[in-house]
């Protein structure tokens, strides 16, 4: 159904067409669905919608549909669905009561009447709304307002935490790299002297100097300990406390207490 959003004439089709069956029959496009047609027909009964005769209304609607068909107007499906439903409703209303029917035909009829009332109320309210004194048509605002000016001023914000975090990050990012020599585990000569002196008492036989090194020490510490212990044995040999021997170059260095 073609529907212009803005139309030239605000007057709804039922206003004049209601009195002119020819236009009514032909101008099916002027109607917005079956409920719209039903409301127009109901208003034609010229009674309060609350006192409308549903049976009569159904008859009028079916007549309307038949006339449209006679004129070979293409009717949208919803008009025909409504016609079928109304036919059923009319017969149910006229036939002896079926107590099993749920909803009852009376309830269906009442629902239809309530819907028509509601649509009618909104239609009338819309008309009253449109008829009000409206800005730009009946009432005017100032034609040439100077306008109020807003001068935007920027206000900067920054949180304290953001400030100090930023400084921390600057420092962390740009501090000159400090190269610190790692503290290594070493055995000093003093430690080695003490250690070898203490242990030599038990070594009556020739003993590999490596036996004097601390057990379980890592390679770096063992190296340091070996160097210190070697120096310590030399010192002890010089003092006459021990004897040293090495069978050949790079052979194990043997140590024993001097008898």
């Amino acid at each position, binding site marked *: *159904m073609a529907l212009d959003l803005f139309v030239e004439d605000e007057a709804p089709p039922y206003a004049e067409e209601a009195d002119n069956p020819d236009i009514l029959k032909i101008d099916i496009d002027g109607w917005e669905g079956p*409920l719209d047609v039903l409301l127009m027909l109901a208003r034609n009964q010229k009674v309060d919608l609350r006192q409308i005769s549903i049976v009569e209304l159904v008859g009028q609607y079916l007549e309307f549909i038949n006339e449209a068909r006679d004129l070979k107007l293409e009717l949208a499906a919803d008009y025909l669905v409504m016609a079928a439903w109304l036919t059923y409703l009319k017969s149910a209303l006229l036939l002896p009561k079926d107590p099993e029917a749920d909803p009852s035909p*009376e309830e269906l009829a009442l629902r239809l009447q309530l819907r028509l009332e509601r649509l009618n109320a909104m239609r*009338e309210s*819309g008309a009253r709304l449109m008829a009000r004194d409206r800005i730009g048509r009946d009432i005017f605002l100032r034609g040439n307002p100077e306008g109020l000016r807003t001068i935007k001023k920027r206000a900067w914000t920054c949180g304290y935490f953001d400030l100090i975090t930023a400084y921390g990050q600057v420092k962390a990012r740009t501090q000159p790299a400090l190269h610190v020599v790692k503290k290594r585990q070493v055995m000093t000569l003093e430690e080695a002297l003490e250690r070898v002196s203490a242990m030599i008492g038990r070594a009556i036989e020739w003993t590999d100097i490596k036996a004097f090194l601390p057990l379980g020490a890592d390679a770096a510490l063992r190296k340091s300990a070996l160097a210190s212990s070697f120096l310590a044995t030399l010192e002890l040999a010089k003092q006459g406390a021990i004897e040293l021997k090495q069978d050949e170059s790079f052979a194990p260095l043997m140590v024993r207490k001097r008898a």
Partner: protein
Amino acid sequence: MMIEHDPTLRAVEAALFASQEPLTVEQIRGYVGGDVDIRAALVSLQEHYDGRGIELVQRGKSWHFQTAADLAHLLRREKEETRKLSRAAVETLSIIAYHEPVSRAEIEAIRGVQISKGTLDVLMEAGWTRPTGRREVPGRPLIYATTPEFLTHFGLESRRDLPGIDDLKAAGLLDPVDTVFDEMQTGEEEADDSDSDAEITNEVEINDTEA
């Protein structure tokens, strides 16, 4: 002869006069300054302009000057009204205004026909309606309501001034049909018929249904 007028009054008057838009009390305060009774000035101005060619009116929360309604015949500009709302748009606007907030399906239930694409757009483009949220039902449909511009355009102080809204409410015509039936049912079950609105009739002609 120069009469000394109240400075606040003058300032409020000037701000409203210069503004291109209706202004709220808070907006006026933004121009006029802090510690003055703007509401009192508005009331005083409203009294002063009462009956003149210009009047000061409140629409929703906003205030503006406009020409007096009874002078419309002198000032009416026919050419301004070239685009009239279609019947579908008028009805839809009316349904939104009287029922807001309301979903598209609810509008369609009242009109008995689908809203053609664009009808709601036209109302939104006019600045009279807008979506205000979603109904918390399956599908979460958008719900629509009217805007402050709607009140301004139609000269309504608030939605309570919608023509006939009290009568429609009292007659239950703003309640959905289903609600009316639910109430009837409840009324029947409780055998309590004190509320004549909820009276059900089994008469075929439904002649005596009270509304």
